[in-house]
C-alpha cells in the first residue's frame, strides 16, 4: 500500500556524493519514522474511539505527498505528514466508520514500516561510524 520501497530505492540511486547524500538519507529515514510514529498515534486514537457514536476514522497522508515531492524535485525535507479524515469505510448504524480488524492490520503494517526504517537508519549510522573510526 505504501510506496516506500520505490522511494528508498530512488534515494539510493541518487547516492553519488558520499557524505552529503548520507545525511539527506538519514533525514529521509527519520522523516519516515516520524510519519510512522504519527500514524501509530492516529491508529491508536481510532482504536480508542471504536465505540464512540458518530466518530469518523482518521488517517495520515504522507507517502503520496512524499512521492510527488520526490518526482517533482521539491525538497523532501519540506514534506510533512498530515492527519486527514478517511471517508472510504462504510458507516455503522451508530455513524462510526472504524473497522477494528482493519485498524489492527494497519497497526501491524505501520509497526513493520517503523521497524524497517529504524533498522535501515541504524545501519546507516553504523556505516558512518565505521567510516569515521576506520574499523
Amino acid at each position: 500500500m505504501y510506496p516506500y520501497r520505490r522511494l528508498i530505492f530512488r534515494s539510493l540511486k541518487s547516492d553519488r556524493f558520499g557524505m552529503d547524500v548520507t545525511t539527506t538519507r538519514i533525514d529521509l529515514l527519520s522523516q519516515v519514522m516520524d510519519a510512522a510514529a504519527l500514524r501509530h498515534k492516529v491508529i491508536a486514537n481510532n482504536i480508542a474511539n471504536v465505540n464512540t457514536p458518530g466518530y469518523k476514522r482518521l488517517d495520515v497522508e504522507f507517502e503520496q505527498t512524499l512521492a510527488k515531492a520526490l518526482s517533482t524535485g521539491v525538497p523532501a525535507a519540506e514534506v510533512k505528514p498530515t492527519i486527514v479524515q478517511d471517508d472510504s469505510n462504510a458507516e455503522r448504524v451508530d455513524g462510526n466508520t472504524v473497522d477494528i480488524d482493519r485498524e489492527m492490520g494497519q497497526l501491524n503494517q505501520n509497526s513493520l514500516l517503523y521497524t524497517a526504517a529504524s533498522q535501515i537508519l541504524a545501519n546507516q549510522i553504523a556505516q558512518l561510524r565505521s567510516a569515521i573510526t576506520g574499523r
Partner: protein
Amino acid sequence: MNWEKSNGRQQHIRRLGNQLLRDVRGAAANGSHRVMDQVGGKGNPTASGLKGVEAIEIVEDQSELPKLFMPSHPEADANGYVTMPNVHLAMEMVNLMTASRAYEANVKAAQTFRQLGEQALAILRS
C-alpha cells in the same frame, strides 16, 4: 440488514446489538447518557487533538422497571406486584464482550507503542 441469511442465534445477538446502538444513539441525542465523548471535536484534526476517549460519568439507566405479579414475594406492593431490576442479562453480556474486545485492541496498541520505542532506542545502542 438481511436477517434471513443468518441463523437464529446470530439474529438474536444482532438484534440485541442494534437495540444497544439505538439506546446509545438515543441517549447521545438527549444528552443524558454521555458515557464517552470524542475529544478534539470537529474541524481539522491535529496531533495534539488526538486524546482518545475518557469516561465522563457513570449514569443510571432510566428505562422502565418491569413489574411482576408475585403476591407471595416479601417485596410485593399492596397490589401484589414486585418491581424487578431493569437489567437484561443478554444485553449486559453483549456490552461486556464489546468492552473487553475494545480493551484488548487498546492493549495491543500500547504494546506496539512500546515495541516502537524500543526500536528507536536500539538506534542509540548500535
